[in-house]
């Protein structure tokens, strides 16, 4: 039933491990500092219905460093403000000559819907609470810079998993490589139902339990505006789940700390953890460019 054009990347859930490794291997051959003309003459449309720093700039730099043209369309300041529908916006972008659309949208499934109605690849740059596949790929890429393989890693994902598209994509990806994944947080952030997302998931309400002996720690941002509506007190959350140097010591010595950003120091993690040698947070942002080059190259380049 899926009519998405080849090269579309809508989510991690439906990818095979070979497809995932294909992206990661290609990313290793990409160097944004050595511009290539793989995508010369191609037009990449960046359609952002939500704010973004990392994802938007790294897709743009990725496209440009392979010779593609990019155009940024934001919801504010475009016809979207006048009520143009998602599909009509897609047809418009296609009509002006887009070869590929990168879309970030506040509603789950928007990239899927678009992909079913246009004849060019659609790349999901984050849709609602659903998926953020390029983030999961760059996280896997980052992990592989530190670990030999993804297979059998012990991973703790700590924080607001319910609202997080980053968490959903990461869980799908790591689960496909049989990682042992513990989801950690209060029930409001980590409902029991979260364990049904993929095989091999475990839920823990204790940061200490989740972190003990793990290889990778993924910390998620705490959105204070969401806490307000819930029955969690910020101080309680910090006391129980904040990533501190003391808690980090429970993990393996060579464990790495990851965070999709933006980070709030003093909330989900301490200043020290953000900057410690085990932190891979800045490296993740850096790796976003070659990974997104690989995604665009796979979709658009003939020889990739």
């Amino acid at each position: 039933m899926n009519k998405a054009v080849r090269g579309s990347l809508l989510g991690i859930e439906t990818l095979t491990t070979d497809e995932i490794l294909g992206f990661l291997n290609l990313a290793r051959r990409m160097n944004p500092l050595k511009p290539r003309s793989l995508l010369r003459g191609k037009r990449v449309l960046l359609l952002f219905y939500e704010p973004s720093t990392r994802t938007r700039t790294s897709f743009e730099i990725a496209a440009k460093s392979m010779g593609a043209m990019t155009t940024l369309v934001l919801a504010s300041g475009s016809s979207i403000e006048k009520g143009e529908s998602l599909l009509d916006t897609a047809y418009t972008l296609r009509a002006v000559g887009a070869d590929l659309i990168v879309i970030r949208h506040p509603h789950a499934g928007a990239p899927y819907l678009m992909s079913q109605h246009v004849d060019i690849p659609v790349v999901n740059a984050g849709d609602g609470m659903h998926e953020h596949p390029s983030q999961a790929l760059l996280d896997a890429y980052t992990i592989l810079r530190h670990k030999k393989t993804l297979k059998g890693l012990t991973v703790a994902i700590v924080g607001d998993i319910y609202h997080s598209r980053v968490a959903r994509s990461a869980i799908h990806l790591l689960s496909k490589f049989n990682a042992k994944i513990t989801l950690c947080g209060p029930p409001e952030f980590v409902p029991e139902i979260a364990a049904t997302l993929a095989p091999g998931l475990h839920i823990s309400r204790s940061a200490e339990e989740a972190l003990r002996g793990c290889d990778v720690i993924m910390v998620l941002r705490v959105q204070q505006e969401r806490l307000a509506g819930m029955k969690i007190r910020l101080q309680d959350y910090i006391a129980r789940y904040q990533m501190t140097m003391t808690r980090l010591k429970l993990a393996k010595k060579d464990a790495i700390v990851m965070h999709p950003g933006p980070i709030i120091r003093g909330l989900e993690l301490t200043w020290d953890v953000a900057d410690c040698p085990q932190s891979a947070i800045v490296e993740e942002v850096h790796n976003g460019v070659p990974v997104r080059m690989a995604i665009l190259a796979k979709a658009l380049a003939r020889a990739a």
Partner: protein
Amino acid sequence: MNQRRGSSLLIRGGHVIDPAARIDAPMDVLLRDGRVADVAGPGQIKDGDSKFDARGLVVTPGFIDLHVHLREPGDSYKETIATGTAAAAAGGFTSVCSMPNTSPVVDTPEWINWLRDPERGAVVNVFPIAAATRGSKGVVLTDYRGLQRAGAVAVTDDGKPILEDDVMRESLRLAAEINLTVVQHAEDTRMTENCTMNESPTSFRLGLRGIKAAAESSIVDRDAQLAQQLGARMHVAHLSTADALKSVRRAKRARARVTCEVTPHHFTLTDADVRDYDANYKMNPPLRSEADREAILAALADGTVDAIATDHAPHAIHEKVMEFERANFGITGLETALGLAITKLHREHKIPLARIVELFTSGPARVLDLRGRGTLARGSYGDVTIFDPKKKWTFKAAESKSLSRNTPFDGWQLTGKVVATIVSGQQVYRAG
């Protein structure tokens, strides 16, 4: 639409199922002057200006749908009374109850009169249900006596619940004085903000905020207790959860005047069917879990459920082919109800045909006390549904009589098809 005075129609050779009269046998039915004139053994009635050959077919009282959105006044681009009732006729329904959540809301006797005006072009009986509160805002009660006098058969704020305890209590108390039924859309909307499907593994996977079963069952529980205290008639619209059924069972055991309906989509589909963000699977209440569906099937079989109602909710394409979370709630249902009931309830779950007919006829007639409907007893209205319980057919949304096409059942192969629909002795639908 009445039968011409003095003329008569003999429906012969069919198998009559009339649960209200405890008939389940080969019988002939004579309709004269828009009424049932006689029901007798095969060949015994010699009368009849015209004849309908019903050999191999089932002949039942006309179906009654307690829950239909005809969209007029206001949203005639989705449906009109004329197109909606044409779809009803094609689905075997001779009577439909129209919901008041239109623009404007049907909250005055004048709007009830407008709905019932022959100029609307209805081809089946339309029984308007009026708003329970002004503008369905849940604050000030409407004029129940005036609305009833104009022809309203119940009151509801459907689409929304009557949320405040005091307002619901007052509504039930006032309605009880005039033997009017209050129909409740049971949803605690304080729990369902921005939610678009049932809370489930699927909602978590798709990243959609989940509607909890408790949002329905907590309201049903409160209302069942209120109805019991006040001796009022309370009907639960589109009941969808196992927990809400428990409250209804408890109330019925206590002889409270509490009734409920379920929709064909809730006994056919589950939340696991919500795939690919297809908004034709988005309705309120949402498709629930398999456990809920099984509880509904059991309640349909054991008599807890009083009626099958479609919650026919037409929407234009541009309101459905869009982001799932932004799309409107609701699907059409008039033309697929019988096929789904026979396919799912009778063939798959072995619920007797007579029980299914009860859920479409005497059951709903009892809920709203529609006298002379839902039975073929002599003197009743000449409303008759004739169907072929074995006929296999494929539902094609594009051929629907409804103005809208929003259904998850497009292309489904169903067993059981309406052959003819007769309202007051007059044939209003005949399968081509």
